[in-house]
């Protein structure tokens, strides 16, 4: 009796703690979204948790000052979709190759992928920049998209996942029926691996969508800017006093991600666990 009472009291305290943490996670975003709908004087007067009605005016203020948010949005979508498609397809291809065939440097390749996950690759950006500028590829999206064919994180996930879905008998049966190896991969394995590919795709997309460092190093033309690069300019002097439009700009950058998360949070949460546990 006493024992269960103690458990009950403890549970109440834990719930209070959990709710405080949850509020800490949500409140900043909620204030952001609410402020996007309020006028600048309102924002300066104080915090409110109730939306205002100034969203349209804020939006106009933002876009009238040459903040080409639709353009940035389009650029970010182009890059992120490209990265997602390439990294999912080629990671699955690599994983299939590793799991189905037995060849002489297979173990080495897998070891290499593990090492690459643990190695800071961002620091080679200086060499990468210089190399791309020699090829006249700065201000192009090629250096931002094409390297996705060798994304170690995605490959690591794909290899773990492929291990659990590869069905050898099915592959053998397809071979007996005269199906080529590439066709087996495309027509049989890719459809089977769809759920995993989907989860990997979300991660690739979000990672590319949020990436600031690489585009920031490589792109200098303002019409090529991605969304994070545009968001960064919101901190500067042009908007310093116009808080309403700053918050609109910020809202545009996070609302798509929040929507994606609201729909697919189950896949995303299981995807994070996938990489760590099966190791």
């Amino acid at each position, binding site marked *: 009796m006493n024992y269960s009472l103690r458990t009950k009291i403890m*549970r109440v305290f834990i719930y209070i703690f*959990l709710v405080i*943490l*949850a509020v*800490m*996670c*949500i409140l900043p975003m909620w*204030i952001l979204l609410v402020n996007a709908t309020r006028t600048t004087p309102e924002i300066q007067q*104080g*915090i409110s948790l109730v939306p205002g009605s100034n969203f349209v005016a804020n939006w106009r203020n933002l876009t009238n000052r040459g903040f080409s948010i639709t353009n940035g949005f389009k650029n970010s979508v182009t890059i992120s979709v490209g990265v997602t498609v390439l990294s999912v397809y*080629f990671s699955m*291809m*690599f994983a*299939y*190759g*590793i799991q189905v*065939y037995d*060849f002489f440097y297979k*173990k*080495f*390749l*897998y*070891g290499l992928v*593990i*090492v690459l996950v643990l*190695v800071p690759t961002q*620091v*080679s*950006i*200086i*060499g*990468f920049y*210089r*190399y791309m500028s020699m090829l006249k590829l700065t201000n192009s999206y090629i250096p931002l998209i094409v*390297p996705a*064919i*060798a994304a170690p994180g995605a*490959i690591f996930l794909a290899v773990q996942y492929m291990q659990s879905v590869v069905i050898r008998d099915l592959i*053998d049966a397809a071979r*007996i029926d005269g199906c080529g*190896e590439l066709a087996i991969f495309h027509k049989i394995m890719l459809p089977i691996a769809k759920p995993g590919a989907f989860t990997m795709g979300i991660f690739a997309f979000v990672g590319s969508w*949020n990436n*600031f*460092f690489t585009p920031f190093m490589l792109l200098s033309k303002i019409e090529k800017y991605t*969304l*994070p690069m545009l*968001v*960064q300019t919101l*901190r500067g002097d042009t908007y310093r006093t116009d*808080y309403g439009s*700053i918050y609109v700009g910020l809202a545009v*950058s*996070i609302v798509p*991600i*929040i929507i994606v998360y609201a729909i697919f949070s189950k896949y*995303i949460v299981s995807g*994070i*666990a996938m990489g*760590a*546990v099966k190791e």
Partner: protein
Amino acid sequence: MSVSDVNIKRRKGKLEKNYYGYLFTAPFIIGFLLFSFYPLIYTFYLSITNTTLMSETSKIVGLDNFKQLFDDKFFMQSLRNTWKIWLLNFIPQIGIAMLLSIWFTNNRLKMKGVGIFRAIYYLPNLLMPATIAVLFFNFFSMYGPVNQLFSQSTDYFRSTGWTQGIVIFVQWWMWFGSTLIVLMAGMTSISPSYYESATVDGASAAQMFTKITLPLLKPILVYTLVTSLVGGMQMFDIPFMLTDGRGSPSGSIMTMNILMYMKFSSTKGHIGAAASVGVVIFIITCVCAFAIVRLLRDKDPEGTGVSSKVKSRELKKGAAGV
């Protein structure tokens, strides 16, 4: 050898198409060599030259860049900052995540709404770091909500302590949910039969935690530690965008990566010097990461020594490749 054995062998021989393995892994190998390996080697090369952005010619200056770097008090400061910011956000991060995952997986507490709480805690990790930086800059600005709330007018970004604290808090805020998910997955994968037999033997909750949970969770903890270290040593986005991009006030949030960018974007564009910062970050991170993996992996208490040895051998082989 029976007839059927022979048949199986022949059938297998016919179906052996192992050379396709080369084809399927070729895109990765080519992509890796072109976009990761070559830039890395090239960065190492640049770090021993005096290349600048403008000059067409450059010459090899040996280890001069590195000598200058270690004499540079800004570099030493950025090194200290990076470690400080990483450690001070990682320790509470793993602490809170551990506490939460113990609560969430505890059979006696039977917490409800675990999935929702977990989903909420992970949300900050998905948001654009650029947005988060600008958002927190506004929150803590002179006339921002934080000052309004406490009716104060503290200039947080003039104080080195506050600014470092804000970066540490934001990093913690962004990452504790992710760590929680990983730890929870690890804890739920531990077989309940261990705990059952420990309960029968009269073990206390604390004993179960230190004798069962922690040892079995070790691979996951190592994974978390190493991935967080690799990310932390390259920290750039939040400290770069929170203040002026030079680690203001007085270089208190200047990380190594920011210093690298500052050297690169300086008027002369010291590519050689910037590359040497990159090389130092690379070496520090790799040495620490492999030391952690070696030290913590090989003392596996679970008797899975064989597999961990194979793994570390694979790592070593791979390291030789890099």
